[in-house]
């Protein structure tokens, strides 16, 4: 899952980005409104964590302009917690709202729920045949036995599961799993797919040559 974090306070930006990376997200960062809008328009993020008070273009303006072209889930991050602010946030198209100072656990939980909802999955635990993916604990079991996956493998499984019965192209996978700072060779999708098949069964992921991958179950 790839997320854009927008925050003008450098320390907070770093902490939130680190937290999300440690939770297995690919994280892009932006420190002002203009940069944020540019990145949010250019990439297919699974979610945007957006601060309200931003230089150049404030969070509301970014949200409004983004909504003209995209429906990327947006989680607003703000120090204002009056009812009016919340109502305004939700009215202008924000999907959720977290008030500073926030708990990182809460932020992660809300972000996960947001991504799941936008993918059309309402439950945290998704079962595909004998495989069970728990997006809450990020644990995958097969025939009730724990399967050890690397974070990248889990991210790929989660992406495909959230878009089950849909074709997921290699570009999409690249877009969603790797952030702008990721330049390692770990982004070889084929290798990850083959590893996942070894662990979860050959037929878990179907390859459509020239198009991409999908989970049919």
């Amino acid at each position, binding site marked *: 899952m790839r997320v854009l974090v927008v925050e003008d306070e450098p320390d907070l930006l770093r*902490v939130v980005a680190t937290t999300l990376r440690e939770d297995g997200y690919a994280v892009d960062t932006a420190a002002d409104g203009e940069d944020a809008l540019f990145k949010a328009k250019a990439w297919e993020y699974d979610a945007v964590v957006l601060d309200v008070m931003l230089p150049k273009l404030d969070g509301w303006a970014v949200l409004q302009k983004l909504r003209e072209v995209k429906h990327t889930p947006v989680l607003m991050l703000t*120090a204002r917690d009056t009812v009016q602010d919340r109502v305004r946030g939700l009215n202008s198209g924000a999907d959720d709202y977290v008030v500073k100072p926030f708990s*990182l656990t809460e932020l992660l939980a809300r972000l996960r729920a947001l991504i799941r909802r936008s993918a059309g999955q309402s439950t945290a635990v998704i079962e595909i045949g004998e495989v069970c993916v728990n997006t809450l604990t990020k644990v995958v079991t097969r025939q009730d036995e724990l399967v050890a996956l690397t974070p990248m493998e889990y991210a790929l499984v989660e992406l495909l599961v959230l878009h089950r019965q849909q074709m997921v192209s290699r570009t999409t996978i690249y877009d969603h799993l790797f952030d702008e700072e990721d330049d390692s060779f770990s982004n070889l999708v084929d290798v990850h797919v083959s590893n996942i098949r070894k662990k979860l069964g050959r037929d878990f992921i179907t390859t459509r040559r020239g198009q991409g991958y999908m989970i049919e179950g």
Partner: protein
Amino acid sequence: MIRSLRWRLQAWHAVVLTAVLSIFGMVVYHLLWQTRIDQIDSELHRTAEVLTSRLRRLLPAVQMSRWRPPMELPEVLGREWLQSLNTSNEMELESEVIQRPPSAPASDDEQARGSSGVFSEQQFGQRPFPPEIPRPESMTNLADEHWLPEDFVTLFEGVDAPLYYIVWDRDGVILQRSDFAPQVKFENLYKGWNSLPVRTVQSRGWLREVTHCTSFGNHVLVGRSIQGDVASQHGSGWLLAACGWLVLTLGVVGGGWLSGRALRPLASMSVTAKNISVENISQRIDLAETDSELGQLALVLNQTFDRLQSAFEHQLRFTADASHELRTPLAVILSQTELTLSKPRSSDEYRTALETCQRAGRRMRSLIDSLLLLARFDAGHPELQRGSVDLAEVANESVELLRPLADERKITLRSEVLPMSVVGDRDRLGQVVTNLLANAIRYNQEGGHVEVRVERVNGHAIVSVSDNGIGIPTEELPHIFERFYRVDKARTRVEGGTGLGLAICQSVVEAHGGQITARSEPEHGTTLEVRLPLPPETGKDLQNPGYLVAASSFHS
């Protein structure tokens, strides 16, 4: 309710209306009465004139008739007819209509007649003219009615009821009286043969009478009862009063309706004003309906609401900004610790985490200090340690303090200061200069220069800090002293400013009775100028070079 404007208005309206109507009614009543009396008087006069002119024509005969046997009247007068006229007069007027005056009651008729005869004799004895014709003794008490010969009755032709008449000669002897004439005491009006005719008007009880005195001393009294007129006048009075009440009632009811109508916009205004609260502070009184004096009031109220709204929004923005500024470092501390504690970390990671927390903590401390300082200034307790402060010294200290920062940015620091003493708080003034200098260095381009000047202009000490940086856009200039206002938000955050520096500078300078102003030319630089009042004795110091510089520049 009783104290409400509308009721008071109505009460006053009623009082004024009553007063006006009463005065009007009284004037009209009086005028009516006057007109009536004038009509009666002119009627009486007219009749009396007719009688006197006839008397004058027949005077010799009348005069003679007192002591000579009655002459034969010419046949022309028609005696029979005249006599029948006299009897008809008697029938027309009831005897009780004529009230006799209290001075002459009916029972004392004889006595009154007698005394009037004596009186007239005494009065007349002194007169030189007409030559005294010896009067027969038997005629002294000859105050008999209808003394004139029967034939002279034609004199009084046309004097009908309710008029009555009495004719005396100059001695008060009744020559003739109408049948129903009351007893009237003779009053001599005769002033001599060459005097002008005299006329008098008098009221006796219900009677109105005029007396004319001819040049020969004959007195003619014509009177009538005015009882009927008084009654009719009273009737008019009651009618007037009734009309007055009607007008008063209509006026009060109409006034109530009008005042209600006039005050209705006021009521709606008060309802609107009452409903304006924090939630709907942008609501305003509708000006469309009230384009009168009330419209002015509404306009003024709306302007007040505008100012209140602006103040309120200002306050709200400040609170939100302060809350944001405090919550952000708090969020850093909390999330950093949460992240670090979520799993075992290396010592480097711990160090980074602690450093982050320290930075955030320091920022909170400086923010809280600034907010408390501003709050003290706002509350009017700046707690200034007042003393004599040399601004040159203060400026030089600030320059030295910030030289490392300037060197780091490759910015040239110049200072041109004159020794200048003001009364103030040395630390706070130092804070102001340091703040201005730090801003000038921070927002200048690399290789730029910053200049501090301390000089004297027009009896004021001026501390100015100018840079040749990018300047402040003209539209932002009025806002730079606002709390948490940032021209370039991103840059300030990186620099670690609180957004309160210039607001504090302004508060400090204003607490010293001074002024702080900013001039800026985009792309050419900014000058911030602090103007402080000088103590009076040094302000007049002619030997001071600063003064001379100012003076010479003034003359050039």
